[in-house]
């Protein structure tokens, strides 16, 4: 199958079109593109638009096949075809340095490698579950298999696979990353309380060893502590020790904080905010007798604006009825809706049904005058239930596979119906062939 046959299969009538084209002297996609559309349409008995479309498809197929065409000599390349791309791995070679740059001798390369020492790497062991899942170099055979032998064993299908070039140095050396685990444990936590605690610890040690008087504690020289790396920023949380002693010994906590401030000032360190701010107040709580108090609860006010009743609002309210409603304490549509219909109808001396109509009209008025709330769409079942509460119309009968044992109205019992069903299953399975073909696979 050449490209022209492929085109005929994809966009025409297959071998018949191919045969017609070949008879007309059209042997390739290029020949087809160079044909006149009118002549092609006339010859293939197509419309001119179809012939133009076939030529357009030929052009596209030629462009698509040009880098894939295995036998370029068999099929002349289309005028519009792109130059073949070098995509095989055999032709992929390491990029050569630009010509204007001087080539580096091996000694220079070694010197470069020496000048750029590898940054210290912290290798953290993985947890056992993850460590087991990583590829291990020992899993693979260390002996190298020659490529020719691998091809003979069928492990390589192509000769194009070449050895990956070894880089003498990393193209992009990783930037040094300071991780939390890399910091020394002696690195100070930058807070006033920590400085104070450290000063207090040193002071206590000094007191124990040199028996300095307690009054001289403030004069103890606190060694300067180095500031942490500026690249690392800590969000200091309240130190647990100070937070624990602060409520019980506020004076001690305050002393530690003052000691920390003094130590920081002596060491020339920048002043820090006190963390935590300890404020302890002693509150004496007396027993309070709780007496039950009756509180009148008012009805929550409507969030929407009240809709006053007026003549004709809602429909059916005349002046007499409006006065009677106001006399009964109902002046808004909301109050009319929420009023007890039966009692109100007795008070107003109107039929209960008319009051219901009024309440419904008031409800509509109330809804119109307030913001419309989108209603939740109701399901089909809910609509059926609303229109047919008893379910006498929409209730579906359950389908059962078993037949009733009782004789039906037609006088046929379950046995005869089941037999009929079995027979229909047998006869529906396969239709006989139309002609006299006997002995098919299902015979």
């Amino acid at each position: 199958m050449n490209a022209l046959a492929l085109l005929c299969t994809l966009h025409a009538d297959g071998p018949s079109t191919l045969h017609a084209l070949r008879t007309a002297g059209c042997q390739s996609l290029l020949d087809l593109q160079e044909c006149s559309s009118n002549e092609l349409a006339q010859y293939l008995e197509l419309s001119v638009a179809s012939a133009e479309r076939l030529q357009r498809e030929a052009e596209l197929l030629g462009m698509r096949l040009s880098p894939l065409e295995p036998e370029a000599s068999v099929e002349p390349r289309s005028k519009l075809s792109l130059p073949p791309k070098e995509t095989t791995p055999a032709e992929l070679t390491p990029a050569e340095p630009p010509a204007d740059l001087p080539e580096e001798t091996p000694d220079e390369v070694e010197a470069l490698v020496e000048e750029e020492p590898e940054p210290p790497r912290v290798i953290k062991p993985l947890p056992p579950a993850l460590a087991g899942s990583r590829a291990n170099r020992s899993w693979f055979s260390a002996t190298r298999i020659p490529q020719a032998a691998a091809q003979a064993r069928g492990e390589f299908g192509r000769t194009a696979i070449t050895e990956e070039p070894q880089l003498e140095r990393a193209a992009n050396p990783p930037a040094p990353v300071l991780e939390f685990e890399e910091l020394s444990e002696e690195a100070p936590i930058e807070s006033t309380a920590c400085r104070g605690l450290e000063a207090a610890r040193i002071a206590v040690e000094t007191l124990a060893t040199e028996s300095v008087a307690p009054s001289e504690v403030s004069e103890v020289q606190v060694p300067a502590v180095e500031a942490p790396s500026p690249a690392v920023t800590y969000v200091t949380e309240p130190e647990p020790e100070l937070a624990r002693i602060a409520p019980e010994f506020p004076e001690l906590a305050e002393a530690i904080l003052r000691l920390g401030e003094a130590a920081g000032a002596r060491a020339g360190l920048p002043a820090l905010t006190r963390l935590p701010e300890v404020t302890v107040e002693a509150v004496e709580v007396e027993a309070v007798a709780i007496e039950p108090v009756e509180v009148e609860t008012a009805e929550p006010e409507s969030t929407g604006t009240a809709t006053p009743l007026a003549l004709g609002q809602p429909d059916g309210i005349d002046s007499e009825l409006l006065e009677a409603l106001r006399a009964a304490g109902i002046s808004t549509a909301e109050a009319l809706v929420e009023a007890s219909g039966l009692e109100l109808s007795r008070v107003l001396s109107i039929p209960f049904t008319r009051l219901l109509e009024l309440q419904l009209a008031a409800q509509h008025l109330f809804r119109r005058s307030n913001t419309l709330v989108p209603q939740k769409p109701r399901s089909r079942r809910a609509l059926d239930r609303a229109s047919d509460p008893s379910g006498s119309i929409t209730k579906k009968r359950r389908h059962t596979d078993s037949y009733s044992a009782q004789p039906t109205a037609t006088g046929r019992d379950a046995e005869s119906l089941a037999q009929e069903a079995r027979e229909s299953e047998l006869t529906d399975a396969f239709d006989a062939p139309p002609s006299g073909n006997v002995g098919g696979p299902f015979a």
Partner: protein
Amino acid sequence: MHTLAFANQKGGCGKTTSAVNLAGALAARGARTLLVDLDPQAHATMALSCAAEHGSSLADILLYNAEIERVIRSAPGGIDLLPATDALTEFEEVSARRMHSDSCLAAALRRVERAYDFVILDCPPRVDGILCANALAACDTVILVVESGAFALQGALKAQRMIEASGADRDQAFDIRVLATMFDRRLRIAQDLLIGTQARFGDRMFDAVIHTSVRLREAAAYGVPVHELDAKTRAARDFENLADEVQAHAARREQELSSPAEPSPIHSS
């Protein structure tokens, strides 16, 4: 006699349908055609309405050296059929203990080579099995059936490598051709796969492409070739085109064999 084997490592790619209907197309134009069912599933046998459970089959030839003339049956569409049964799996089991078990079919077909113009072998979906080895030993042309679906091209390439290795081992001359099947022009994926197959196999691919057709399924269900069911359908025309190419290929090959100056290819390149 020209012997064509329909093969692919992948199952369900249309080997049996192509073999049965190509045999029908060749027989319809008067060529004496024998279809050999080498698949223990016996789908080609069933597709021609022949149930071989109660008669002799290809397994009797391969296992017990039965006479091939007594096993061949007449099938619909003017095709002669060498039916299969699941006893062929027994031959697969005992073949390891027998000498020259891969040339049993070739030896049997040699007895009837003057009686037929075309012998079409329907191989099981396993190229490295003993049944397919028998087919490769007996055939002069292997038709790789490539469906227009995922993994089809990979399966065809794998089968091609194995077939070429088999031919090189025996120093046997056969040609490999590729037939695209189950092609649906409306599907972009099918178009892309056909373009990829054409780019890979080029002129070794048949111009004829077998399209997806319900008529082919119906013909198999009725137990007849598609020419018997409806000779005007597109599927029948596809196999007509394929039969044209097969006959042209056979004539070309015959011409090559008859001229000693042009040696036939040892194996396809």
